[in-house]
């Protein structure tokens, strides 16, 4: 036995075993790799042809093998191909496969003497091919051996003889980009471009102590708390002192005080230093001139440093990725030429702009990954978050800023350029000059730019949405399909549609009497879930409305990307706008003025303890409201359905009564039928009276009333949600708005707190409901006073509605109160509605929390869309 021979293999690679039939590849693979890691061509032949030796099935078998290998590599799994692979064409297709999935191709050759292989094959009954086959394979193998690296294999191991094969041990080596075990904290620094002075100032501001050599030149910098700098590349070119920057950064990296990825300028510098022909442009000339003044050893060190940098790094358990030009998620912790190219140069569309510069594909708009990606490369006036990515190149060399992001704090730290060191080819806008720069960036947390369009894969198909409240919520494909039509054609822009309210379950059915719903059942439900105090809120006779109002158009543009002249939205429970833009703005002005007069911007802004909640006044406010009258939204429905039923009844029933009275006069026995018909006539009048309460004329905003009853969220940039504030707090905020409103459009919500442990209080609650509904009210909603409450079996219903006897005529039909009808209607099934209400509640709150946390708009939209999709599930519409 030889000594164990260690074969290093990159952790994510496509390992290609090469050896003639009988060389022991399968045995080797079984010993060295996991059960599922090896894909054998023989096995695949068996899969497609029932015979592992059926050579006629080879093409199909390799098709299957490639398909499986592709899926495994996409999933980031090392994969081994067990086939002879003695032909170059066979290997080429595997090298291509590895490259197209951005994994490294590795060759392991099992070079075993021919007689051993022949003997092994003869010992196996199922291999009936002649010795000449093995001889031919050996010839091919021998010809292949020297060229394997040239074929594209990044690692080649050749095991000669049976002993070496048996003694070999595979060692998996992490990719060079894989620094997941490094958790920081980090200070990630954008493109420096030779601006040594600014870099020194920035490091100083970040709390690093500079170390200088005898000549006073900085050669290292260390942070007292052990923080480390991460340089995003383009250290050199254009600026005044590229060697000085390199000296400092190389020192920091060598001392373990910094990490660095290369930029395209370092890449080019290496080629220039190697004497390869490069076009000396974009500031390279300055660098080369500056380096000429340095000793040759320094130039050699620079070359070695720059050449040794890894194009991207994955840090902090995969939560942070850094690359000079950014990196899409499929390329994180991958290795291939195109991964490196993306990391250095980004993706271009192949076009050039009016200044002759390449047009860059906005990959960040499409980014859906969980890892934060930080990058530089393209100077931007302000660092802004786009889908959890941020560009930190703020054009220091062009007179902008040198920018660092503290991670994990996500705080921006900047120094201003001392001067314009280099005139840019394309005019570089100073911060704040361009209209699309969010002022939020000045908060220190970085602003945000949401892409103006989302991708269909964010919403379509069967989806599972992770919620903190109720775990995974599944949306069926057909429901997503239904919701897509409404969302695309009728809903407001996803950037503004940050929430949809959940459906609400009615109380359990009253067991007897002349009612279908009674407060006792709602009280019992909460009492049995351990809730002591509930609040009963008047159920307004209008439509659910969500109001998003911004303090001013600047916030609307910066935080929500709203067009000029727009300061918010007022939308229905399926996301449709209530009004045209001018009426919407008029109503928003009412709410905004009341919020200002009530001091709500200050009150709600400072109350947040979320990130950045440093007492800044709120810039936006999201309110849960009821908008009256119902006829504003539902006049079509009221006329075509409710009033029509009334009209038909009003004409038909008196005529029927008259005919029956004539029959009675003629002595016919129709008394019962006459009595029933008279009763139905009265029911129809009651029905008409019920819907008429929902109708009154409006003109512009005249006649429109809005009753806010809950503050969903508020914030300056990111924000806070308020589901843990009790309902009296919410109603107090609403009362403050109503009190501050000078227009009369805002209306308060009557409420009563009921102590479920006190019979007197409970009786008071029942009496309050009876009084509300007797005077024509729709009913009430009973909510746990504390708001969000978790019970033994998860989150409780956020509210239970108890509707009035007369109101229910327009739901269950005019005659539902007839005793025989009522008894049959009591058999209603609430389980599905309750389940739906809870899932939608969890999704709605998830959307709010994601939005308030400043997550990308696709993450918010995913949850909002899921609410709409669930709403399209079939459920008894009377509940």
């Amino acid at each position: 036995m030889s000594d164990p021979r260690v074969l290093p293999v990159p952790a994510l690679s496509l390992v290609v075993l090469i050896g003639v039939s009988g060389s022991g590849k399968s045995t080797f693979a079984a010993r060295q790799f996991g059960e599922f890691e090896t894909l054998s061509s023989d096995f695949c032949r068996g899969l497609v042809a029932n015979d592992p030796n059926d050579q006629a099935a080879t093409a199909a078998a390799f098709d299957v093998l490639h398909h499986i290998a592709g899926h495994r590599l996409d999933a980031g799994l090392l994969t081994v191909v067990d086939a002879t692979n003695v032909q170059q064409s066979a290997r080429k297709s595997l090298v291509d496969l590895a490259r197209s999935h951005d994994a490294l191709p590795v060759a392991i050759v099992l070079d075993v003497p021919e007689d051993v292989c022949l003997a092994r094959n003869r010992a196996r009954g199922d291999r009936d091919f002649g010795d000449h086959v093995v001889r031919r394979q050996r010839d091919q193998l021998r010809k292949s051996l020297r060229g394997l690296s040239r074929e594209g294999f990044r690692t080649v191991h050749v095991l000669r003889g049976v002993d070496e094969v048996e003694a070999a041990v595979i060692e998996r080596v992490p990719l060079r980009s894989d620094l997941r075990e490094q958790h920081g904290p980090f200070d990630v620094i954008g493109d420096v471009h030779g601006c040594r002075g600014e870099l020194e100032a920035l490091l100083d501001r970040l709390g690093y102590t500079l170390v200088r050599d005898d000549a006073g030149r900085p050669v290292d910098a260390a942070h007292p708390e052990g923080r480390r700098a991460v340089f995003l590349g383009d250290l050199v070119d254009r600026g005044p002192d590229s060697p000085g920057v390199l000296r400092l950064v190389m020192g920091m990296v060598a001392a373990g005080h910094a990490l660095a990825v290369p930029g395209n300028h370092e890449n080019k510098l290496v080629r220039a230093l190697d004497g390869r022909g490069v076009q000396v442009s974009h500031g390279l000339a300055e660098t080369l001139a500056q380096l000429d003044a340095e000793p040759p050893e320094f130039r050699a060190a620079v070359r070695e440093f720059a050449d040794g940098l890894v194009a991207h790094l994955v840090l902090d358990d995969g939560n942070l990725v850094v690359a000079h030009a950014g990196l899409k998620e499929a390329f994180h912790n991958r290795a291939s030429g195109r991964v490196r190219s993306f990391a250095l140069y980004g993706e271009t569309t192949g076009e050039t702009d009016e200044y002759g510069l390449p047009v860059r594909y906005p990959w960040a708009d499409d980014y859906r990954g969980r890892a934060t990606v930080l990058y530089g490369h393209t100077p931007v006036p302000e660092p802004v978050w786009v889908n959890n990515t941020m560009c930190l190149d703020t054009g220091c060399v062009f007179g902008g800023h040198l920018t660092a992001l503290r991670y994990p704090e996500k705080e921006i730290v900047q120094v201003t350029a001392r001067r314009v060191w280099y005139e840019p080819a394309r005019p570089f806008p100073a911060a704040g000059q361009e209209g699309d720069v969010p002022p939020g960036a000045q908060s220190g947390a970085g602003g945000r730019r949401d892409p103006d369009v989302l991708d269909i894969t964010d919403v379509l198909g069967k989806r599972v949405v992770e919620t903190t409240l109720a775990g995974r919520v599944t949306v069926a494909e057909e429901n997503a399909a239904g919701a897509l039509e409404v969302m695309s054609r009728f809903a407001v822009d996803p950037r503004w549609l940050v929430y949809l309210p959940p459906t609400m379950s009615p109380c359990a059915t009253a067991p007897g009497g002349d009612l279908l719903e009674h407060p006792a059942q709602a009280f019992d439900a909460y009492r049995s879930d351990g809730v002591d105090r509930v609040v009963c809120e008047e159920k307004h006779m209008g439509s659910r409305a969500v109001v998003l109002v911004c303090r001013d158009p600047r916030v609307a543009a910066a935080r929500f990307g709203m067009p000029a002249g727009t300061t918010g939205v007022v939308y229905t429970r399926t996301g449709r706008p209530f009004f045209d833009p001018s009426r919407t703005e008029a109503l928003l002005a009412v709410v905004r003025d009341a919020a200002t007069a009530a001091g709500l911007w200050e009150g709600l802004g400072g109350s947040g303890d979320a990130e950045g909640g440093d007492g800044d006044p709120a810039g936006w406010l999201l309110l849960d409201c009821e908008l009256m009258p119902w006829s504003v939204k539902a006049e079509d429905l009221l006329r075509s359905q409710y009033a029509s039923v009334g009209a038909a009844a009003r004409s038909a029933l008196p005529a029927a009564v008259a005919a029956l009275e004539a029959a009675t006069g003629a002595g016919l026995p129709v008394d019962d039928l006459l009595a029933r018909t008279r009763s139905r006539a009265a029911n129809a009048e009651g029905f008409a009276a019920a819907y008429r309460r929902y109708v009154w004329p409006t003109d512009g905003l005249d006649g429109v009333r809005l009753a806010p009853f809950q503050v969903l969220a508020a914030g300056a940039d990111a924000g806070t949600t308020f589901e843990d504030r009790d309902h009296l707090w919410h109603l107090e905020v609403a009362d403050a708005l109503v009190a501050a409103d000078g227009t009369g459009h805002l209306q308060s919500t009557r409420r009563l707190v009921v102590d479920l442990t006190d019979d007197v209080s409970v009786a008071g609650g029942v009496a309050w409901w009876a009084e509300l509904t007797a005077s024509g009210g729709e009913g009430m909603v009973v909510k746990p006073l504390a708001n969000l409450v978790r019970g033994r079996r998860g989150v409780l219903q956020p509210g239970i509605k108890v509707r009035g006897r007369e109101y229910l005529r327009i739901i269950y039909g005019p005659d539902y109160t007839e005793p025989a009808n009522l008894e049959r209607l009591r058999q209603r099934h609430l389980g599905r509605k309750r389940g739906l209400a809870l899932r939608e509640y969890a999704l709605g709150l998830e959307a709010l929390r994601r939005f308030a946390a400043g997550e990308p708009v696709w993450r918010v939209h995913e949850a909002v869309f899921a609410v709409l999709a669930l709403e399209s599930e079939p459920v008894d519409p009377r509940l």
Partner: protein
Amino acid sequence: MLLTMTTDAEGASDLGYLLHKHPGRVQEFEQSFGVAHVFYPEATDERCTVALLLEVDPVALVRGKGQRDAGFSLAQYVNDRPYAASSMLAVALGRVFRTALAGRCEARPELVDRTWPLEVHAPAVPCRGGGEVAERLFGPLGWQVDATPIPLDPEIPAWGDSRYVDLRLTGTMRLADALSHLYVLLPTLDAAKHYWVGSDEVDKLVRAGGAWLAGHPAREEIARRYLAHRTTLAASAIARLAEVDDATPEELDDAIAQEEPRSVPLARLRREAVLAALREVGARSVVDLGCGEGELLSLLLAEGFERLLGVDVSPRALTSAARRLHLDTLPDRLRSRIDLIQSSVTYTDARVAGFDAAVLTEVVEHLDPPRLAALERAVLGTAAPATVVVTTPNAEHNVRYPTLAAGAMRHRDHRFEWTREEFAAWAQAAAGRFGYTVELRPVGAVDPEVGPPTQMAVFRAEVAR
């Protein structure tokens, strides 16, 4: 739910023999949806009135249809069926007076062919289109028609009249004919709704109807209305979403346009103009964004385009398009050239990229203006084909449509209609943002003052793709 029929002919009470119902008795007939009562409020030799009173049980009506299916629309529960004289009354009439309808009378066979002066009264008849529809349908059959509109709600006068009329018909004819007229025509009066109607069944009823139907001047209309009424309210996902937001299903589910007759030739002109533009740029693969029922795709397939993709946001439109294109029976050679997928122009979609040209016919005006930026980004920015053809109405031309009220738009779902200048401004700005040049063209006859009925923009990418 109530219908009375009166005659003052001599021997009026003989009507009882013919109807096979004794004037001195009250009779009940169980129906699946309730009970039909037949009685005579008046029965003398001078004057005889028979009443058919249908007592609909609204709870049983729904429960009988399968209580386990919770997918019903709210309209199943609260509707006019207990009150209105419509299809249920017709069904009951057909059953209760089956013998009379068939023209048989064993006791007094001579009464069958007697003509009677009759007055029919139905106090609540749903009659979409107003009284003149009743006149058009019953008049040619020898009835004098008196249809009084019923107000929608007397306490809300601003709402005007309901779709119901108080209908009185007077005429002299055989009883069997009178019953036959009512049996077929009552349901048709209700049915101007075109929602969920399949149009290929139209001829069936005409064949099934009696001799009078075949010769009726309005038989096409009768057939259409009859079939429209019969279709049930299918609870599609979009109908349910309409419901949760208190909208009528027709309000949201209008992706399959009910085109006005005036626009049919225009639609053809539009398709031809699009085809010409696609030919001109040499496009061989085309994605039709907002393909609707697939009229354009059908043309392009016949014209030999190599690869076609129809995209619509409405599953119902796609189903309809698949039917129109006969996707399930196309020969492989054709089938491999065309696909249909659900997607939306306000989202980016990789499946929509890679075509020579994209077409947006009559699509942009269905988007709220703030969503146009998303469409631009998705189509011009991300899918980015070499050519994009957009058509949209020319708002200036609307004054040439006499039936269109001033300032009104051509379709209830249009969020805007552009003038030529507005369209040009939008097209040029969008082209500039995404590296296209744009050329504007008229579609249809150009009116010297107000321009063409439809306008078209052909976007071409500045850089070859």
